[in-house]
C-alpha cells in the first residue's frame, strides 16, 4: 500500500535511459547520499527540538517558543549561530587530531545508519551482517571521543575521554550480548530478515522473559554507550565542566551534538527494529478488524513511532536520574549487566535449540 519501490524503480529507469550502468550507480549513490544527509539533519533537528521540549515540560518550563511555530525553528537558529562562531584551536592542542575528531564522530554515525530498515523498501543497504556491522561501526565512535579528549590538551578533556573510553568499551559487551539474543531467536543478522521474523508478533511479545531482560539491558547499555545521563561520565558538566568537548567551539561542537543526537536515533532505531518489530504494524492474534486498521497505518509511521518512543524513554532517563559515579558505573556493568546478559543468552540459546520458543 505504502510502497517506495515505485519511486526508486522510477528513478532507476529514468537514470538508466540517460547514463551507462556505472553512471547510474554513481548517480544513485549521490542521490541516496543527499537524501541520507538531509534526513539526518532533519532527524537531528527534530530530536534537538524534542529534547528541549521534553526537558522543559519535565522541568516546569515552556522550552523554546519564540522562533517559528512554537519554537520549531529555534534549533535552526542555533545551528546558524554555531556556524557563524569563530572556530579557534587551542594553541597547545594537537591540531590534526583536534580537527579530525568531530569529523570521525559524524562519519561513523552516518555509516551506521546505512543498514537500518525504515520500511520494507526504504533501506539504504540491506547487508547480510547488518547487526554485526552496526555494532562494529558504532564502536569506532569511541576513537573520536578519545581523540578529542587527548588532542585538546586539557585535563578535563583527558579525564572525560578516559572515562568514556572505559565506559563505552565495557557497555558494548552488554549491548552486544542483548542484541545476540535477538539474533539467536530470529536466526539472522540481516535487518530485513529480523523484521520479517516478527511478522507474527514482535519479539518483545513472543520472546517472553529473556527478551524483556535483553530489552532492559539493551536500553541501559545503549544509554551508557550514548554517553547520556545518567551515564554522561564523559561530559559530567558538574564534575568535568564539559568533558571531552570542553575546548571545542562553534561548528565543531555542533558536530559532536549532531553525532550525539544521531546516535540516539540509531540506538532507538535498532532497539525498535530488534525488539519492537521495526516497521511491522501491531497485530493481535485473530482480531481481523483491528489488524486491518493497524495495517492501514504506514510502515514509516510505525517505525518512527517506535523509534521516538524509545528516544523519549532515553530522554526521560536523562531528565530524571542523577549521574552515577565512574566506579559505580563500571560495577553496574561488570558485576550486574554482564553476568545477567550472559546467563540470559545461555537461556535463549537453550530455548532455541530445544525449540521452546514460538
Amino acid at each position, binding site marked *: 500500500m505504502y510502497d517506495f519501490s515505485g519511486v526508486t524503480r522510477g528513478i532507476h529507469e529514468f537514470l538508466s535511459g540517460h547514463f551507462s550502468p556505472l553512471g547510474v550507480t554513481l548517480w544513485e549513490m549521490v542521490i541516496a547520499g543527499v537524501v541520507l544527509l538531509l534526513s539526518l539533519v532533519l532527524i537531528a533537528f527534530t530530536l534537538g527540538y524534542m529534547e528541549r521540549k521534553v526537558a522543559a515540560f519535565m522541568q516546569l518550563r515552556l522550552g523554546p517558543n519564540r522562533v517559528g511555530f512554537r519554537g520549531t525553528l529555534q534549533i535552526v537558529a542555533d545551528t546558524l549561530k554555531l556556524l557563524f562562531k569563530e572556530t579557534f584551536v587551542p594553541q597547545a592542542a594537537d591540531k590534526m587530531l583536534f580537527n579530525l575528531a568531530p569529523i570521525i564522530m559524524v562519519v561513523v554515525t552516518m555509516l551506521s545508519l546505512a543498514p537500518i530498515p525504515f520500511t520494507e523498501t526504504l533501506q539504504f543497504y540491506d547487508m547480510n551482517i547488518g547487526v554485526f556491522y552496526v555494532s562494529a561501526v558504532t564502536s569506532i565512535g569511541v576513537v573520536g571521543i578519545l581523540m578529542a579528549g587527548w588532542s585538546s590538551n586539557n585535563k578535563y578533556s583527558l*579525564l572525560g575521554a578516559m572515562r568514556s573510553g572505559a565506559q563505552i568499551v565495557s557497555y558494548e559487551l552488554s549491548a552486544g550480548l542483548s542484541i545476540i539474543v535477538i539474533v539467536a531467536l530470529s536466526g539472522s543478522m540481516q535487518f530485513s530478515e529480523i523484521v520479517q521474523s516478527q511478522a507474527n508478533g514482535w519479539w518483545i511479545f513472543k520472546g517472553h522473559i529473556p527478551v524483556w531482560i535483553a530489552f532492559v539491558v539493551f536500553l541501559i547499555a545503549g544509554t551508557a554507550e550514548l554517553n547520556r545521563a545518567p551515564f554522561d561520565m564523559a561530559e559530567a558538566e*558538574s564534575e568535568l565542566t564539559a568533558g571531552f568537548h570542553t575546548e571545542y567551539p562553534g561548528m565543531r561542537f555542533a558536530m559532536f551534538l549532531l553525532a550525539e543526537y544521531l546516535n540516539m536515533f540509531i540506538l532507538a532505531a535498532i532497539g525498535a527494529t530488534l525488539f519492537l518489530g521495526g516497521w511491522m504494524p501491531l497485530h493481535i492474534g485473530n482480531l481481523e478488524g483491528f489488524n486491518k486498521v493497524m495495517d492501514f497505518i504506514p510502515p514509516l509511521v510505525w517505525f518512527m513511532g517506535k523509534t521516538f518512543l524509545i528516544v523519549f524513554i532515553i530522554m526521560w532517563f536523562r531528565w*530524571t536520574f*542523577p*549521574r552515577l*559515579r*565512574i*566506579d559505580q558505573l563500571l560495577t553496574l556493568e561488570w558485576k550486574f549487566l554482564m553476568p545477567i546478559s550472559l546467563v540470559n543468552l545461555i537461556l535463549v540459546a537453550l530455548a532455541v535449540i530445544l525449540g521452546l520458543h514460538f
Partner: protein
Amino acid sequence: MNIFEPENKKLVESEQDFVVNVGPQHPSTHGVLHLKIKLEGETIKAVQPHLGYIHRSIEKMSEAGSYRQFSYLTSRMDYLSSHMNNQACALAVEKAIQVEVPERAKVIRILMAELTRLASHQLWWGAMGLDLGAITPFFIGFRDREEILEIFEDTCGTRLTMNYVVPGGVMVDLHPDFQKKVVAFLGRFKKRIKEYDDLVTGNIIFEQRTKGVGVISAEDAISYGCSGPVARASGVSCDIRKLHPYDGYEKLEFKECIETEGDCFARYKVRMEEMKESVKIIEQLIDNIPEGDFQAKTKNVLKPPKGEWFTRVETARGELGVYLISDGTMKPYRVKFRSPNFSHVSALEHMSKGGKIGDLVAIMATLDLVIPDVDR
C-alpha cells in the same frame, strides 16, 4: 611588603602527579572557589583550597562604617541567609547599647529568618541535584524559592540582600499581605515537599552517590569547627537556636534534627528535616504576630561603651558569630565574622581524600558552600 617567607605545602611532588584546578570558574563550586586537587586516576589524593577571589575585606570596611552601617555589608557575605547575617549584627549592637527589642520585631525576625532558611535549603536542594547530575530538581527548588522571594520583596523591597533587620528591631513594618501570602505558601509547600522526596530521596542512584561518601566523625566535625547541618549530620548537637536562644526561639517548639552517619546522605536528611521544622516554626508564629512597635527607640548615632560582645546566630549553613569590639567612638573598633562556610572549606580535604571526583562534587554540594561567606 612580604616580610615573611611563605612556607608552601607542596602539592606537586613528582611529574607523575596529576593536578587539576577545579575552579575558580567551575559549575559545581557555585562561585569562585578554587580547589587544586591532586589525582591518581580518578582518586583524589589531596585537596588544596585557594581562597580570596571574592575577598572584599568586609571586616576592614566595617571599621570604617558606623554601628548602623556595617550590618548592610553582611548581607553580601552569605547572600542566601542575608537575613540571619543582619540579625547577628543587630543582636551584637543591641547587646552593646542595651536596647530591648519589641516583641513584634522579634517575631518578625524569626519569621523572616525561617523563611530565609527555607529559601536557602530549597536552593541547596536544587543545586545539589544539579551537582549530582539531575537537572530537574533545580527547577522545582527554584519554583518554591521564588514564592518566598516574592514575599520578601513585598515587605523588604529586595529579594536577596534584604537589609531588613536593624539594631532595635526591623526597618519597616510588615506588608499587609504578608500573613495571607505566607499561609498560602505554607499550604502549597507542605504538599510540594513530598514531591522533593519522590524525586530525589528514594532514588537508588542518589543514595549510591551519597551514602558513605564524605564521612566526618563527630570528633572531627567538632575539631574542624563544623556547625549547622554538617555537624548535626555527624551527631553533634550544635543548633544555636536551642543552645543559646535569641529573639525568643526559646518559646517555640521545634526539634533539632540530628543524624549520626556523618555522610552526605545524613546531611541531606538533616536539611530536609530542617525544612519541615522551619515550616512548623512559621506556623506557630504566623497567626499570632503581636501588635506594637516594630522598632525600639534608639538614638540616631549609636555610641556603645568600651567593651566587646560576641553574638551567635544559626544561619542556614551553620553558626555565624559576630565579634564586636568598641572603643567608645561611633565606629566599631574591630568586627570579626566567624562564618560557618570558612570552617567547612577547611574540612573539605579531610572529607574528600581518597574519594573520586564525583564524590568531591557530592561533598561540596552537601556542605552547601557559599563562597562570598568564605572569603568575606
